């Protein structure tokens, strides 16, 4: 087991290293960030001073090594636009994204599991068809359509704050997070409903369910206690991976709702070709995803000996 964990951790570190290298190289394709300011050419002296300030006058491999060294110490440098510490920008954005991801996952699970169970238990009924149709539709609708429709029709009504709104309007975080979380949750919920329905149907055919029924247990106990628990395993895997993705920031949803998370930070940085922020956010997303999926893998190995033995 120790060796398995070690192997997964080493793999994770390699993936993260490879990702940093790739994104580092990719942002260099953007070109010289200091050659122009608006439509105006920047005088060569000033451009050179700026390049020196950001260490861009050094050879690329050296820049990368310096960056990695700083990164390990939690220093992501300063951004091109306002010369603010990138680590601070990330620090401000991460809690918002984590909150959004957790609420979205909770909504996911609630809707997905309930719908999936109903569809499986009342197989081929009106409810089953309804769940299947809605799930298929939900998977097909792009996130931005849901987001834009919600902003246009629901935001500003009842507990949901307006988008955009003056920044001084204080809104408790749980209100601010509701609509974007719901937007993010819809597609995942649909997936979970379908996963849940499938695995539930399989479990319901299993011998031990028949045994449970034969013992005279109530249908509620059979479904709730015996069937559901086992059918949740694929859902847990899916949720783990999905959480990793969500922690990395939901660019489209956060931008539509002007929600100050990691995804919004990234979309702004891309618009302004602000490479230090782009690199840091991408690294954070990769780390979040790799760490969570590694944890899921390790947990899985605990649950299922076949995995760790292979």
């Amino acid at each position, binding site marked *: 087991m120790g060796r398995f964990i070690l192997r997964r951790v080493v793999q994770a570190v390699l993936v993260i290293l490879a990702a940093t290298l790739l994104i580092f190289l990719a942002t260099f394709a953007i*070109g010289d960030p200091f050659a*122009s300011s608006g*439509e105006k050419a920047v005088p060569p002296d000033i451009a050179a001073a700026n390049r020196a300030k950001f260490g861009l006058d050094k050879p690329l491999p050296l820049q990368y090594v310096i960056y990695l060294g700083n990164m390990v110490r939690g220093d992501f440098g300063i951004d091109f636009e306002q*010369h603010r510490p990138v680590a601070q920008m990330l620090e401000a954005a991460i809690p918002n994204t984590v909150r959004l991801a957790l609420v979205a996952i909770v909504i996911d699970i609630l809707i997905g599991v309930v719908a999936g169970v109903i569809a499986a238990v009342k197989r081929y009924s009106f409810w089953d068809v309804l769940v299947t149709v809605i799930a298929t539709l939900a998977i097909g609708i792009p996130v931005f359509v849901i987001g834009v429709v919600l902003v246009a029709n629901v935001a500003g009504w009842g507990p949901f704050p307006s988008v955009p*709104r003056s920044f001084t309007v204080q809104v408790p975080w749980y209100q601010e997070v509701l609509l974007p979380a719901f937007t993010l949750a819809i597609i995942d919920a649909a997936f979970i409903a379908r996963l849940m329905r499938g695995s539930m149907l399989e479990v319901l055919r299993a011998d031990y369910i028949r045994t449970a029924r034969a013992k005279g247990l109530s249908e509620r106990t059979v479904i709730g206690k015996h069937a559901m628990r086992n059918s949740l395993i694929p859902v847990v895997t899916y949720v783990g991976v999905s959480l990793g993705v969500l922690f990395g920031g939901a660019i489209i949803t956060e*931008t539509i709702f002007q929600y*100050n998370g990691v995804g919004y930070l990234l979309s702004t940085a891309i618009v302004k070709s602000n490479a230090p922020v782009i690199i840091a956010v991408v690294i954070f997303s990769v780390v979040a995803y790799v760490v969570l999926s590694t944890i899921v893998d390790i947990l899985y190995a605990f649950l299922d000996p076949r995995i760790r033995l292979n």
Partner: protein
Amino acid sequence: MRRSRAAASAIALTAVAAMVLTGCSQKSNQSTGGSGQTAVGFPETQDLPPVAGKPGGTFRLGITEPTAIDPYNAQESEGILVNKALFTGLVNVKPNGDVYDGVASKWEPNADCTAWTFTLKPNQVFSNGEPVDSAAFKRGWERTSAKASASDVAYHLDEVQGFAQMQDGSASTLSGVDATDPNVLKVGLSKADCEFELRTAAPPLAPVPTVAGAADNKTYNDMPIGNGPFKMDGPWQHDKGIKLVRNDSYSAGPKANLDAVEITITPADTGIQAEYDGFNNGQFDWARIPTPLLTQARAANESKNQWISKKTAGINYLLVSVTTKPLNTADARKAVSEAIDRNAIAQGVFQGSQVPADAFIPASFTNAYQPGVCTACKYDPEDAKKLAASAGLTPGTEVNFQFNTGGGHEEWTAAVKQQLETNLGLKVNYSGVPFKDLLVNEQQPNATGLFRAGWTADYPTPGNFLQPLLSTQAIGAATPNDVANGDNRGRYSNPQFDQLLAQAAGTQDEAKRNDLYKQAEKIAIGDDMALIPLFARQQFRLANTAKFGNVNMDFWENPTLSEITIK
């Protein structure tokens, strides 16, 4: 050139391709030259009658995150909006470009305009109580021009003696600025400029208190202490907002009426849409409008007097490489210009929101505007063919045409390309590249053809169009084989034109100066067609005039915050 960050990316979004095509095939015989009034375009609106000010009210609006609000690096209109509320320079500028007193009560140049004396109003203070004296200006100017600051906008000071030494790091004080008398600021210039006072309204020439420290002082960058009609209420909350409150110790002019201004940061790429949505959902009192929604916004708001439409000091044009074939003759450039149907594009692509240009100096300079000075700005495909033939621009000639992607320029540049192909039979090598690449391509000594370009004035003078874009000095290349580091990347050079500009810079009488500018424009645009003017800049805003009075658009296209009052 101040940067426009949220540059109309929306223009491209919904202007349907079909409209472009139909728009371009229309035959328009309408001449845009000569009359001064153009047939297309939304009419300008008149300012509403002024309202007596009373204290109170909170004005709310959205902007995209500025690069800086600290004077040393405030640059795009968003940064200038906040900066002008926090700081008052030596002079102020009215929406129409007229200059009036700021901290200085009086200013005058010497006979040849190489030295300026600004007399400051007494007892001026920053909002922290520090005096606003001549030393405060010297401090601010040195902070902007110091090499270590690496300011993007230090060029505003490039006429001041000692600027070059500050920029290369060999000096730590601006030798041309004399602040020995706290009430008098003396400025020595390295070249004559009878309009230098206009530059002192630019944010980088604002005074700063001693607490400002160096340009990398983060505390001051995020919460500048200034001498303007407003002051910061807490530091800038990056990506969220900026709150300003009235500065009750303001004495350089009338105090502001508003209690507070709440500036919300909108997304970088969809900021204009967010402003518009925010206006419609009652969150903002001022908004820009995505181009595809202009007609709709006008219809809904004009009758309520909530619609503002103004021609402003800016122009969209085609930069032409005038030293390389095939556009190295005036006739060739005139042929290209006359083959472009500006009216059709203004109606088809821009839905009437842009006005075909008939001059290079915009109409907002009422005393220097020469309607129709660009004789080749009229659409005349027959004449264009004749000119092209005489200039060797035969059908099949290859002409490069580049624009920058992401700025909403796809549709109208495509229309221009099509018109050049249809009307002149040229083979247009049309390509969209990222802005930074466009700039690099323009700068190369072997650059050829046409490039999309735009310009908005930094200072309210016609000279700010002619000098940086067309003077020999502004090419910024030591030899024709060097990269052009200035703004005149088309490399137009005409000694007669340069001579007129130099003469204008040394002419104190405004009428005579404008006359020289007119002559210079006639040569560069009318005769030489050094670049191809396309559309005059016009701006549209929505303003909550039901709740607020005196809401107008200032020279930098921002709301006149210091005058706005609750009704």
